């Protein structure tokens, strides 16, 4: 590290050093450092000995008892993100070889006002650019091991790259994460607003907890056994879940309450909560088995799907597929929100990418229509196209379009002929006719929906399905092509 002065400066700024972050994150006494004596290799501009570490502090450790590899930017030396020693790359490769998670703590720009410090030289960088950070190896990682990027200080350049290649990106509020360095006008892409960040935290301790929580749902490597919780949560009937969903189709409600009720108590962990809030994504557990949940959120735009929702869902589905986590889809949506703005925002290719993603899923998928599902949205979110289990509650409406709109579109020529006064009545009657047709027993008749179940039975039916799948020996999970899709588009 950069010496006592630099460390004091970091502390004076109210921040933590790389080793302090690692100590806070991992299990006590589990950190086993490598490369302690690595130094910057160009002695022309870094003649002083003693600034050891090479810009990265890292090694093996344990997190909740499970082995991980951790690498943290050492911001007590100049421009640590340039990483001339190749230490991050080595640490990533070690994690890959041992098949356990790799955690990178990014804070490469954190203390820019320390004045000149020894660092890598330009000549060295010119020879080795791009080959030093873990970056080139991450490009081909294919979600083989979970990768976490925690932005706990300002980060740009090489320090920012893992943010674009990880499975879980957690950022400390107030830090800057950007590809380029700080700009004169202070402009920086807001990673949280662009949906790249999975969780924003206000304290480093919160970030450590979020990382532990995130990894608790995943196997140590793709194809590894899922970390099933030891405690046995019973799969009883729960009639109360029905009360969370108002029967009236226009009433909004909190879908997250439904998810929490469906999952084992306290097990739901939401990702990208602030982005595209009309769809909810996160991990939970059912009968102790980790699951990924994708759910429409009627509190927001009535649960209608925007192009951003598609991005959020695609990203999450790729994550679940990569690590063999089963998917549960809870549907209550009027469909894709159509507008000129959405079309400009490339609704077409984004919707199709969601379709492509869900078509390529190989993990078990269960979909439940809790209230309504229409048109292409239903076709895409429905599980049974890939031999998943497709369920609907008895009050569900399923059809090609919201009935009142459908009536209006279908009977437009008839309506035009009618006197003004009779139109509303005619439309209401036709919508009601369509409404009957849209009851779930129609789609259950031709197996578009596999079963109509009482809401109270949902937890038991889904849980039994997952238990059965787990017992019949699904592992090792061989991830499909989605494992190699980008983390975000």
């Amino acid at each position, binding site marked *: 590290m950069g010496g006592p002065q630099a460390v004091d400066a970091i502390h004076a700024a109210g921040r933590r050093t790389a080793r302090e972050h690692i100590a806070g994150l991992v299990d006590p006494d589990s950190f086993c450092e490598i490369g302690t004596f690595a130094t910057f290799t160009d002695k022309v501009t870094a003649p002083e000995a003693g600034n050891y570490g090479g810009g990265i502090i890292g090694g093996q450790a344990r997190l909740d008892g499970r082995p991980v590899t951790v690498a943290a930017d050492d911001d007590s030396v100049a421009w640590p993100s340039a990483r001339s020693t190749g230490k991050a790359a080595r640490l990533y490769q070690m994690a890959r070889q041992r098949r356990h998670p790799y955690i990178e703590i990014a804070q490469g720009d954190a203390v820019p006002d320390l004045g000149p410090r020894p660092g890598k030289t330009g000549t060295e960088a010119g020879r080795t650019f791009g080959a030093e950070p873990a970056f080139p190896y991450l490009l081909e990682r294919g979600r083989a091991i979970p990768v976490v990027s925690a932005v706990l200080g300002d980060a740009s350049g090489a320090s920012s790259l893992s943010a674009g290649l990880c499975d879980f990106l957690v950022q400390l509020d107030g830090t800057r994460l950007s590809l380029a360095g700080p700009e004169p006008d202070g402009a920086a892409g807001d990673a949280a607003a662009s949906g790249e960040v999975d969780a924003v935290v206000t304290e480093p301790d919160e970030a450590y907890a979020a990382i532990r929580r995130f990894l608790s749902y995943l196997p140590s490597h793709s194809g590894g056994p899922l970390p099933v919780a030891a405690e046995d949560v019973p799969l009883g009937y729960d009639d109360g879940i029905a009360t969370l969903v108002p029967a009236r189709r226009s009433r909004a409600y909190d879908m997250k309450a439904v998810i929490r009720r469906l999952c084992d108590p306290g097990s739901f962990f939401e990702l990208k909560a602030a982005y595209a809030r009309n769809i909810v994504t996160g991990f939970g557990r059912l009968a102790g088995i980790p699951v990924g949940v994708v759910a429409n959120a009627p509190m927001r735009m009535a649960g209608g799907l925007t192009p951003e929702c598609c991005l959020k869902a695609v990203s999450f589905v790729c994550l679940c597929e990569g690590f063999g986590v089963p998917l549960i889809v809870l549907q209550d949506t009027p469909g894709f929100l159509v507008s000129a703005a959405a*079309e400009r925002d490339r609704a077409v290719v984004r919707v199709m990418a969601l*379709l492509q993603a869900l078509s390529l899923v190989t993990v078990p998928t269960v979909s439940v229509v809790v209230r309504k599902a229409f048109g292409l949205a239903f076709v895409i979110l429905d599980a049974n196209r890939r031999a998943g289990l497709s369920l609907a509650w008895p009050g569900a409406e399923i059809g090609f379009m919201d009935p009142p709109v459908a009536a209006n579109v279908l009977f437009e020529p008839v309506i035009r002929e009618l006197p003004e006064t009779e139109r509303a009545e005619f439309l209401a009657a036709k919508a009601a006719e369509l409404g009957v047709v849209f009851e779930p027993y129609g789609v259950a008749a031709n197996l578009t929906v596999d079963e109509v179940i009482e809401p109270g039975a949902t937890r038991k039916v889904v849980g039994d399905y997952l238990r059965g799948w787990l017992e019949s020996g699904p592992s090792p999970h061989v991830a499909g092509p989605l494992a190699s899709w980008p983390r975000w588009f």
Partner: protein
Amino acid sequence: MSQATKPVYPTLGEHIGRLADPGSFVPAAHAGDPTVQADDPAAVVGGEALIDGRPVTVGQAGHLVVRALARRHPYIGISSGTGGLARGGKRNLGVLDTVWGMSGGPMLAEMCDRLRGVPVVSAVVRHSFGDSTFFTGLSDYVVQLRGASMALTSPRVLAIGTSERVTMEELGGADVHRLNGQADTIAETLDEVYAAIRRFLSFLPSFAGGPLPVREPAPPGAGDRAGPASRGRQLIESVCDRGSLFELRRDFAPGLVTGLARLEGIPVGVVASDPAAGESAAAERAAAERAAGDGAFSADACLKATRLVCTCDAFGLPLVFLVDSSGPRNEPAAISRAMMLAQAVQLAEVPKCIVITRRAHGAGLLITGPARVATDLVVAWPDARAGFYDGEAGEQHQQYQQYQQYQQYQPPDGVIEPASTRGTIAAHLRAVLGPAPLTRPGRILRTWPVGFLAQNFVIVKTLVCYFVQKSSRS
């Protein structure tokens, strides 16, 4: 085109007659498509034909795509003008399995399963909604006729569902998809549509893994060889066979030129920075690009290039990158987009030829750096600079000033004179291209999304929707 007179559209049979080689069309029977009414005289649903002597299947939107997949030759979908609702909905009303059928379900499944096994082209030649549009979103190449539009659903459904009143043109006209990148080519006439389709297919093998359609070498164009200030298109002209550049998505992220071309007769995908983009009055977005830098490898440009890289990798076309990128830019999702392109370039297994013409900074560096040295060519012109940050933009990055000394970049395969760029690339391609196909079934990029998920410059912050509120009053 006046609102009052209903335009007369060519039938599918007429389209095929003008698109394909004369007399080559063999119409399919109705091919079991339940949505086609047998008593409709215009109900030609497509069939097989030859284009430049090579077999293709042509159909209405995504219909018959399964035939092309089975026969391992390209598929061309002509947008049918209507979604499932108008085509089959009225007849099938009340038959619930049409949720799947009316959304074009079987076609969508085939399109998702194809994984770029054969080239798929979508021609948007009239207003298209519903499954015609879905098909377009899953196609490798989209040509849109000016005056035609493409959207998820029609202005009429919008008016009823959300009270938003827009014209077809505003909703999904040529100017919408020209600027958001969902159309690869905008054609002014039907003849331009047919020519564009023939041109696109002329660069590709009939199926992934098929032999490349190599042609007689032609001399290079008379592009500006003077060096650094070369504009992207001129640069490509000077490197590739004369007149061979077929540009894709010209007005989307105009700071980067992407297209298909030939180099000594070999089809290649080509990506070139265009530092002078924005001089064309037609490119509205270029103004924003210019304001924020030179636009090469902006977030949108990364999406633009990624689509090309995926297409080329799937069909075995070598890639040529002519890089001049001034540096990274901070904009929404910049990191992810840059990483996506870097991943695509890294995962592409076709030969890659990377020429740094002036600067490789930011994302330009990221795609250059990790190239596979064993198979790829990485060269630079004299005085080319590389590094994550541009040292000359020093006032902004004072702490990086010291790194100016590495601006004399030593690329793995050496420094070449600009005039020898074409020869160097050609020699490399001759050396690495053998009789074996350049693709294999397990190739990762074949599975990547077909349309890229670009985000607009204007992020849609509030999208007020009355859909449910309005429709649930009944």
